[in-house]
């Protein structure tokens, strides 16, 4: 009887040693803007060229293969848009680059913001790892009023592994309710100065992640920072990890949009419903898809779509020196609930 029980136990062990099934990861897409340019304008009409991407998981995260001509929906909210042209293009080669990522930690409100750092961390790390070696990358954090900018490690590096642990530390410890005033403008100003001195390449890129802090130290003129960035040949990119909230500081938000648009940077807004259904729903897959391609977009020679919209306004007139926002949509057959993906874009009428 005892020997039979031993045999039963070993039989149970034997049948338990089976291979786990692999999960089929569903297809997903990400849509964003590479740059915008105002071709011409009058007080009631603006002709705007938008370079944008629709990345497809099933096409190895490259541009979607199928034609979207019949699936593009023109802007219709603030401005009525007419499609002038739509084509596939390859962007100009910009060459190797220096890229800095500036992060602010601490949250004014923690409600609904728990995932901010969870989503930002892999996004930043993926960019740093895909961009490094051929290019130089660095990580910095917005500090306090005494030291507004904290450079992580030794600044620019070609080994992204060095930044892994410091990035994890910032993101794990960053999710705290903050009451102080964020010196983000000073940090950006110092960052531009630092990049001007330390960058190896003339092609410079800055990505800013700010953690929705309501209070910020407004001790520098916003336009002077924008002008400084443009004069320094720094392109400021914007990846919106989370949507705006009613308590968002829209003055700061508008500044980032203007900085991004005026320097012709990449703009991506994460659709909230898109990061589900992957290994328990932890990773922002669409955001990661974009961050994995950022280095190619920055380097140039990137295949994308180019659309020209004629936008007519009925409410406020177009004037130079201002930023305008609109959006169009692309209809895609995704596995997810959202099949019509909105692509917001901003354009700047140069004085």
């Amino acid at each position, binding site marked *: 009887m*005892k020997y039979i029980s031993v045999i039963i136990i070993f039989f*149970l062990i034997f049948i338990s*040693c089976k291979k786990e099934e692999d999960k089929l990861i569903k297809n997903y897409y990400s849509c964003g803007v590479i740059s915008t340019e105002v071709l011409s304008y009058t007080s009631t009409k603006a002709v705007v060229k938008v370079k944008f991407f629709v990345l497809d998981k099933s096409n190895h995260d490259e541009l979607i293969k199928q034609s979207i001509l019949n699936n593009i929906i023109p802007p219709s909210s603030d401005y009525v848009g007419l499609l002038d042209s739509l084509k596939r293009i390859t962007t100009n080669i910009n060459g190797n680059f220096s890229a800095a990522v500036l992060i602010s930690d601490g949250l004014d409100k923690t409600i609904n913001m728990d995932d901010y750092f969870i989503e930002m961390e892999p996004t930043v*790390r993926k960019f740093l790892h895909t961009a490094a070696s051929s290019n130089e990358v660095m990580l910095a954090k917005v500090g306090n009023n005494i030291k507004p900018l904290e450079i992580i490690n030794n600044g620019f590096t070609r080994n992204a592994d*060095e930044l892994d*642990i410091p990035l994890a*530390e910032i993101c794990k410890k960053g999710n705290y309710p903050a009451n102080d005033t964020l010196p983000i403008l000073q940090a950006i100003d110092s960052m531009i100065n630092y990049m001007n001195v330390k960058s190896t390449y003339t092609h410079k890129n800055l990505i800013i992640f700010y953690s929705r802090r309501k209070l910020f130290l407004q001790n520098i003129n916003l336009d002077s920072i924008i002008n400084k960035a443009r004069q320094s040949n720094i392109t400021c990119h914007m990846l919106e990890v989370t949507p705006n909230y009613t308590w968002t500081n829209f003055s700061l938000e508008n500044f980032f949009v203007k900085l991004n648009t005026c320097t012709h940077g990449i703009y991506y807004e994460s659709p909230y419903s898109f990061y589900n259904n992957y290994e328990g729903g*932890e990773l922002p897959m669409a955001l990661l898809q974009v961050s994995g391609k950022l280095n190619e977009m920055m380097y140039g020679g990137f295949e994308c779509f180019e659309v020209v919209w004629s936008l007519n306004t009925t409410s406020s007139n177009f004037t130079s020196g201002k930023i305008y926002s609109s959006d169009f949509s692309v209809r895609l057959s995704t596995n997810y609930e959202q099949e019509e993906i909105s692509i917001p874009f901003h354009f700047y009428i140069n004085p």
Partner: protein
Amino acid sequence: MNRFLLILFLLVIQEYVYSQKTEIGIIYSPILVSKLTFDKDYIIFKDYGSLTAGDNKFHAYFTGISTGLFFRYKIRNFYLQAETNFFGNNFGQQIPDWASSRKKNFTYSSIDVPVICGYTINPSSMIRFRIYGGLNNKFGKFITAFYSSMVYLINDNMNQEYYFVDKTRKKELINKLHFYSLNVLGGIGISRYSTSIDIRIERNITNLNKINYENNANFKDLFLIRLCLSHTLPYKTKTFIIK
């Protein structure tokens, strides 16, 4: 002098053979208390995410079907014991970021081959006490059905569907481990008739990592405290006499 030494040697051999007794039995380890530490604060994964590395606390687990066979060779109060165990190594709660109970899944099985030398304090008593120490050779890192990262859920339509619990990260953690490691162990046990209860403590003495990374957390120290139940199977011992 040589004759005296020869007689002495034969006396020792005779004593040794007369007192020889071998035992075979089954051993079961239902409860494990474990602690696994890391050399850095964060584990970086290939999916570009990270988790806080270790909470430096002991956690208790049920190990499921952790069982094996032992072979014991007794020489008076002393004994030598070799085992082959299929053992469930559970460390799920060592990762504090895996808050959900479903995610506490850093668990794998190994083939453990401990070699033990022990001392029975009162061999002729009905209730016997033992102390022992030795080395445990751990081979392999198997993911079995008992420790699968696949969990069955019922969805809104009342259909059964799979839920994968950080499968890729769990596999990555397990893949970081070396195929073989050596632990030093010590323990105490109480036996009554053929049944024994032991408490066994283990700690690694070899590097647990397949590769040591400079910019990622590596495994550092492993502590295992196991409750072992063993039962000696009926076995006919053979003795022979040197004439």
